């Protein structure tokens, strides 16, 4: 596995963006489906029209609209939005499985849009693998052959590719199922095969398009844990598409929220919950148990002048629910520190308000 991958101690911590190498860097990405698509993207006046207007006047569907974002190395970057908001289109544009209409994409500093078909295939074979919602397994190949398929495409001989495939099968917990065929496996196991197939190529980046949406809730939880574990062990960059906010919060270092192909907000989970950019996001996050997502920095109040000396302290990135015992057990408000600087205090009232779900009044 890649040696440069930073090891991270806590899932959900903000990525080290300052100076850390970037994997994907996407700017002003457009995807318009339809006969006139090229004209629309190049035409400045059309760009200002809404998706509905473009559809009405040209019959073209604007699936991705002027998106810009970057994904840091080792980050789990989640793209979230309702069905039809353009998530699948976006993630396919990253390796040009769907050809973008306009915009720039670079991977590890290389211009993806400039690659010729052969170079693009190399990129898909070695650098970026994808896991699909409907698995995309070959029904006439055994689990082993499905997992080894990417290596076979790359031209690697049978001995080596089966050895690698067996290792990866072990890794995803499918040991003993090598000779089975996809239709003899449950949905969750099929997706493990899909995951193993993507991992077999040892890519730098994994793309997931709603990989667990077709699975039962319990199995989905297992698979999410599996992804978290793999990420911890391998530190691969992941771009993860989902329409499930809880999944996004659970997995994502940062989350991009899309609506009708446009970027609505981008930020860490607690930024989205703590400071939703608009009604849409606020609506989205309204059902979330805030105390499980927000950190103390979202509920601090100014340090009162009568604070007794010797008050206990907690780090600012402590999740509220984790701080409950300490705060409730303390007779006075608790100091919240970010490194060496005190950013404020939390008291029982602030904690209980969040636990009870009463919105924080800013």
């Amino acid at each position, binding site marked *: 596995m890649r040696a440069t991958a930073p090891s991270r101690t806590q899932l959900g911590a903000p990525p080290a963006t300052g100076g850390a190498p970037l994997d994907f860097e996407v700017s002003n990405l457009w995807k318009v489906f339809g006969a006139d698509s090229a004209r629309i993207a190049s035409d400045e006046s059309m760009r200002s029209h809404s998706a509905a207007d473009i559809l009405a006047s040209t019959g073209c569907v604007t699936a991705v609209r002027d998106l810009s974002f970057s994904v840091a190395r080792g980050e789990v970057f989640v793209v979230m939005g309702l069905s039809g908001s353009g998530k699948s289109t976006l993630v396919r544009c990253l390796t040009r499985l769907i050809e973008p209409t306009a915009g720039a994409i670079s991977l590890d500093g290389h211009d993806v849009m400039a690659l010729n078909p052969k170079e693009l295939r190399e990129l898909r074979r070695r650098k970026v693998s994808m896991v*699909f919602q409907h*698995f*995309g*397994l*070959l029904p006439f190949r*055994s689990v082993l052959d499905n997992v080894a398929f990417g290596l076979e*495409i790359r031209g690697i001989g049978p001995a080596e590719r089966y050895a690698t495939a067996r290792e990866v099968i072990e890794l995803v917990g499918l040991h003993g199922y090598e000779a089975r065929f996809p239709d003899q496996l449950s949905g969750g196991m099929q997706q493990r095969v899909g995951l193993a197939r993507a991992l077999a190529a040892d890519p730098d980046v994994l793309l997931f398009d709603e990989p667990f949406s077709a699975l039962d809730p319990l199995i989905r939880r297992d698979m999410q844990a599996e992804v978290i574990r793999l990420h911890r062990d391998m530190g691969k960059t992941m771009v993860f598409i989902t329409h499930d906010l809880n999944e996004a919060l659970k997995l994502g270092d940062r989350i991009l929220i899309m609506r009708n192909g446009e970027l609505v907000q981008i930020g860490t989970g607690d930024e989205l919950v703590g400071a939703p950019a608009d009604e849409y996001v606020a609506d989205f996050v309204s059902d979330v148990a805030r105390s499980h997502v927000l950190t103390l920095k979202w509920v601090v109040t100014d340090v009162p002048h009568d604070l007794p000396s010797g008050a206990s302290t907690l780090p600012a990135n402590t999740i509220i629910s984790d701080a409950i015992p300490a705060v409730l057990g303390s007779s006075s408000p608790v100091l919240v520190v970010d490194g060496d600087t005190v950013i404020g205090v939390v008291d029982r009232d602030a904690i209980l308000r969040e636990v009870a779900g009463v919105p924080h009044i800013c």
Partner: protein
Amino acid sequence: MTTTPPRSPRTLATRIRPRTWLIVGIIVAWLLAWRLLDGLWTLSLQSAEVTPLHLWLNEVNVWVSNNRDSNPVFVYLFDGIRGAVGALAGVFIALFVKTDVGLQLPEIGWLGVVALVTWVAAAVGNLRVALLTAVGFTAFGVLGLFGDAMWTFALTLTAVIISCLIGIPIGIWAGLSRRAEAVVTPVLDFMQTLPSFVYLAPLALLFLIGPPSAVIATVIYAAPPIIRLTAHGIRAGPATIGEAVDSLGANRRQRLWTTLLPLARNSIVVGLNQTVMAALSMVTIAALIAAPGLGQRVVQALQSLNVGNAFVAGLAIVVMAIVLDRVTTAASRRAEISARHSTDARRRRRVVALGAGLLVVVGAVYASRTFLWAARFPDGLSIGPWLSSVVGGATAWVQGALSILTANLKDGITIAIINPFQALLTGSPFFVVAAVILAIALIVGGVRATVVSALCLALVIAVGLWEDAMVTLGATLIATVVTMAIGIVVGVVMGRSSRVDQWLRPVLDAAQTMPAFVYLIPFLGLFGPSRFTAIVAAVIYASPVVIKIVAEGIGAVSAEAVEAAESTGASGWQTITKVQLPLAAASITLATNQGLIYVLSMVVVGGLVGGGALGYDVVAGFSQSSLFGKGLAAGVAIVLLGIMLDRITKSATQRRVTRLPGTRRARTSTAPIPAAH
């Protein structure tokens, strides 16, 4: 395809009524015109008469036979193809039929042949079909027709191999490229509207008569199903899999070989089954251009009206059809389960068993090359002549004892329906008949269909066969009306009752795999040679496909619509006439389209059993060189009639509905295409 939404039964009914009145009015006007102008401008032509065009075609024939040795196009192109096809056929002929040297026995003798085909059936299928194959091939010997059956088998095999070599690549190409599909599909559609008869004369002109041109005609007739189903299989591969394979960085070649072709395998094998059955049907008909084999026996027997011999040869064809169908069907099942679901141990056992079987084959071949009894099927075991005389006797008895029934039925219908209708068509002035046809085409098919029909009718007149074309058209229409009546009644029963469906479907499937020739024999036995016989054979030949399409249409009517009708207290009859039939209208129109094409094809073959008209012209063209040109022209006229009927009914179907679930234009079978998974 139009995009009109399906209409509700009510608006359909209100739309039909004025149209029906219009058609009735046209027919009344026609009857009046006939009464007034009977016998004028009929463009009649006696059966031995020819036109200048026919004479010119005769000269072309003579010119070709005089110059084929010196003309480079013939020497290099046509003779080259002929030589290559002949060489491949020669391999199988030597293997299965006879070598040119010595006793003219097959290379591996009859025992070797039976052992080899049985082994192949076991290898591609299973033990049951292997047993069937062994019994079937031995039965050819018992019927006294081993050599003839092997001719048919060898030619069919050659044609199927060439069809696959040509058809699978074309199918892949059509499956991969939209543009290729746009080129290939209309060509296949056109080829499948052509009755098998019409390929023969032009091919005989280019490639001479005999086995190679029979194989070429068969390839042209039998390749479309495998092309279609290969293209379908390639295209039907799930997009989700294709995308996953792309995401792994597969190039086009890898994508085709590792994904698309394996996913298409089922569909290709189904196509192979249809191609094999079409090939068998055509190889027997190619007897008319001197292809040896069972077809030849049937033709000879039909021409001498020897029902006994025709029956025995027909029985052998039926056995061949059953064996080939069962084996290729079993092969497609095997393709489905293939390597999977079977453990290593079971696979190893199978390999060992097949290896042992191969030793038996080698033993049988050795025996055949050593002992005469194993090389040539012993005459003493043959019951062919005995069976022939029994059937001949039975036929004579039936024709005598049942003559009250059969002769009255035949004469009654001939006098009451066939003759008057034929008189109306051939006795009216040609422009009156043409105007009636075009008016009906305009009402049911629309402007484009009318333009095509006008062109077709003009060309029929130009080739000088108007009267014969009208006789054939009349027989075709009568047979189609009867076929549709049977098809709707049986189809409704079948569509409404799954029990009847279960029971009837295998019968219909089996009937559809039978070569056209076979249908003539029993009715020749019952009714003797006549136009009536050809019409009855055509009705029986076309009924299975019509029944199936109607049943499918009735079955596809949503259960909700039926429940809704029943909940309002509609009786069974009301449900059928007010809900199911109107909602299945598009299927019924499609069934009419298929019915017409099948009927036309068979009515023409009926030229062999006294069907007369265009079919007779074609047959006579093969046997008398002075009528060659007329036969060729008759072939063209048949094609023109086919195109006209197809265009009219097809645009009627398209007007009814955009798309029908599960219907497609395959000629040899309408077995549903299994969904690739």
